[in-house]
């Protein structure tokens, strides 16, 4: 993942661009999972870079600039690639160092193909060669993408081709490349692609560099201007500026991470950087840029879930990145409904996202298609933010909607008989009911609202809210704690049936909910979660809940391990440790997380329990945010316990 807040690009393990969002992170994907191939022709032998190559992907430390190595021992060639999005302008930068590791001279051609689907559609695109600036340009309506490049010797493209694809039996210009020669077709319209090549005459055991870029804009003039800027400044310089920008960003004075082992420290920083690429310039934080899941349900994770965003905002705040969380709260303030709740999910421009939540329940009664914990978590995150930064002027701008409206809604949306929140969908987005975790988070949010009321000297409101919190807390224990099972149950459904499934989300009742510090009931519940959901075989980690079938790999396990759930356990250990020795359990969870992250530092939604390979999307920003929060809680607990033990 590389990005700058308005241009976000995801590459796959074969170094191919698969997603390109512009001008809003998460909104218009102009590639949509299709592949921008990278290929090499050497002495009449052509190879696309794919599984035949040995490929490693990583970031330059503390930056959003990649360092990837692709080598092919048969061809005796190696490519070292840096990818970045320039921090200040919407330009994708790619530097390719080509190494001829053979003892003979070779002519080597490097090919870049472009399978744009502008605005996410294949129809109505144009690709053409611009002879004055010697570039290829793709456009449709108000989106222009200019592709250009040069070699170290200032040569531009060697050859190019534009052509049609995905129709009339035409596969695309990438196929044309496989003989090492491109047709030079000047323009194509409809469903189109393009390919360009660079030619290097390489001595034995030598290296040459190709600089390649894609300028993104809303007009032809804009992309030409950006192209001129790259040529004038030099791509090498733009890469250096981008490296320095992100290194400065991540190293702002904040939390001292030195207590943490190096691999964990590094993953905290990578997590924050990757999270940052998912933040749109107007505040929406999307769950994932990875569109691999498109093939399963024709939809993606490129939406703003208020829950995921709120937890990201908490993580940014915890490590000192208050300006990013403020952007998110601004987004929330714009999109919250007049009634005071958040919808299921949003596009990053604030429009309502797709949903699968029904408006009628299984009992035939009308229900709100929302997840109430999403509203609660935004309020909790806002209070955490204010506690740390005391930015009253900012809070006063969002207080009427994000605090007052949301609070009024949560107060109104209670069952008069039980005092619990009315049924809404759960954190796993599967069923409507009264969930222990949701109720605990709503109760916690109302408690935060009471503290806000105190800040604004509204003592009557504060008193009233505290009374409601006290009643709701009692109601949760009365209705959702099971004396026989000696733990909280998962939920009560509208037909009054009780769901006693052991669910890791019950830990949220302590992590984000009202049962913090944990009481006896929570300790019993956590014990059940650990006993039933921790994977004692395979790679370890915590499953979501008993008999979880979502992408399930094997019935030997309750479900696949999820980093998010495993991190809740880490945070549980942080909160309950009474000694540094006990705190080591949390450190083990952090080490586990570093161990299961991809070499580039990305954390997936869930993992194969046997080999730890990512399942579903990767990265999932929620996983990264929970990791950052766990590391931060570990640091707090470490300092507290070390002080206690030394004194």
């Amino acid at each position, binding site marked *: 993942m590389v990005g700058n807040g308005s241009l976000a690009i995801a590459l796959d393990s074969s170094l191919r661009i698969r997603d390109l969002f512009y001008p809003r992170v998460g909104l218009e994907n102009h590639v949509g999972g299709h592949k921008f191939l990278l290929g090499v022709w050497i002495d009449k032998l052509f190879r696309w870079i794919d599984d035949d190559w040995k490929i490693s992907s990583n970031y*330059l*430390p503390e930056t959003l600039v990649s360092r990837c190595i692709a080598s092919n021992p048969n061809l005796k060639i190696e490519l070292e690639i840096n990818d970045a999005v320039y921090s200040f302008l919407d330009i994708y930068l790619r530097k390719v160092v080509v190494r001829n590791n053979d003892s003979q001279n070779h002519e080597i051609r490097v090919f870049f193909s472009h399978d744009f689907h502008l605005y996410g559609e294949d129809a109505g695109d144009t690709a053409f060669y611009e002879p004055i600036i010697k570039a290829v340009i793709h456009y449709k309506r108000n989106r222009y993408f200019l592709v250009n490049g040069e070699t170290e010797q200032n040569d531009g493209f060697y050859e190019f081709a534009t052509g049609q694809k995905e129709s009339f039996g035409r596969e695309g210009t990438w196929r044309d490349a496989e003989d090492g020669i491109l047709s030079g077709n000047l323009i194509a319209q409809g469903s189109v692609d393009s390919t360009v090549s660079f030619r290097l005459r390489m001595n034995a055991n030598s290296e040459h560099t190709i600089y390649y870029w894609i300028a993104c804009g809303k007009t032809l003039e804009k992309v030409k201007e950006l192209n001129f800027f790259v040529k004038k400044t030099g791509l090498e310089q733009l890469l*250096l500026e981008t*490296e320095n920008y992100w290194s400065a960003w991540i190293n702002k004075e904040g939390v001292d991470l030195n*207590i943490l082992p*190096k691999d964990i420290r590094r993953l905290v920083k990578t997590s924050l950087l990757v999270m940052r690429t998912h933040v749109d310039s107007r505040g929406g934080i999307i769950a994932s840029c990875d569109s691999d899941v498109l093939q399963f349900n024709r939809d993606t994770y490129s939406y703003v879930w208020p829950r995921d965003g709120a937890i990201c905002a908490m993580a940014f705040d915890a490590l000192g990145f208050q300006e990013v969380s403020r952007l998110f709260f601004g987004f929330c303030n714009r999109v919250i409904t007049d009634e005071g709740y958040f919808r299921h999910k949003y596009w990053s421009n604030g429009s309502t996202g797709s949903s699968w939540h029904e408006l009628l329940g299984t009992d035939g009664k009308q229900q709100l298609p929302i997840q109430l914990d999403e509203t609660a978590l935004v309020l909790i995150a806002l209070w955490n933010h204010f506690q740390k930064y005391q930015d009253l002027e900012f809070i006063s701008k969002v207080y009427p909607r994000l605090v007052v409206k949301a609070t009024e809604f949560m107060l109104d949306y209670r069952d008069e008989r039980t005092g619990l929140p009315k049924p809404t969908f759960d954190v796993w987005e599967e069923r409507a009911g009264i969930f222990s975790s949701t109720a605990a988070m709503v109760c916690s949010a109302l408690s935060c609202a009471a503290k806000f009321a105190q800040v604004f000297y509204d003592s009557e409101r504060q008193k009233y809210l505290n009374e409601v919190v006290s009643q709701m807390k009692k109601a949760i224990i009365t209705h959702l704690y099971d004396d026989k099972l000696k733990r909280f149950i998962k939920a009560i459904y509208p037909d009054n049936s009780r769901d006693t499934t052991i669910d890791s989300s019950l830990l949220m009742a302590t992590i984000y909910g009202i049962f913090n510090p944990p009481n006896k009931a929570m300790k019993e519940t956590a014990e059940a979660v650990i006993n039933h959901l921790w994977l004692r075989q395979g790679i370890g980690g915590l499953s979501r809940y008993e008999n979880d079938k979502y992408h399930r790999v094997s019935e030997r396990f309750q479900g696949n391990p999820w980093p998010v759930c495993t991190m809740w356990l880490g945070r549980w250990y942080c909160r309950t440790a009474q000694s540094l020795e006990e705190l080591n359990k949390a450190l083990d969870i952090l080490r586990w997380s570093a161990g299961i992250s991809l070499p580039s530092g990305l954390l997936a939604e869930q993992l194969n329990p046997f080999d730890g390979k990512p399942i579903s999307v990767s990265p999932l920003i929620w996983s990264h945010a929970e990791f950052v929060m766990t590391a931060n809680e570990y640091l707090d607990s470490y300092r507290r316990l070390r002080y206690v033990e030394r004194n």
Partner: protein
Amino acid sequence: MTYLKVSSIDMIPPESVKSFRIDGKEVMVINNKGKLFCLQARCTHAGAPLAEGRIEDDILTCPWHGSKFRITDGEVINGPAKKGLQVYKNIIKDDFLYIEL
């Protein structure tokens, strides 16, 4: 010149590298086989975080562009960096590391 407190020495175990911000400067502390070396934390070429670099014998390799520095005196062994790293004198007192800035 004064000595400023950096860290307790148990925070810098053998074969570890940590960076600290001291009086507005980023300082890297290397524990190489039990001996502590304090140098500027950023590469003189392009500002890379050197604490993320690799150390073999007493040579530190920059993690971004591969410059090599000798940790004993900060000298450049290989570019692209042209300028050596600032080296800070250090003392240990009561289990705390201090450097001269």
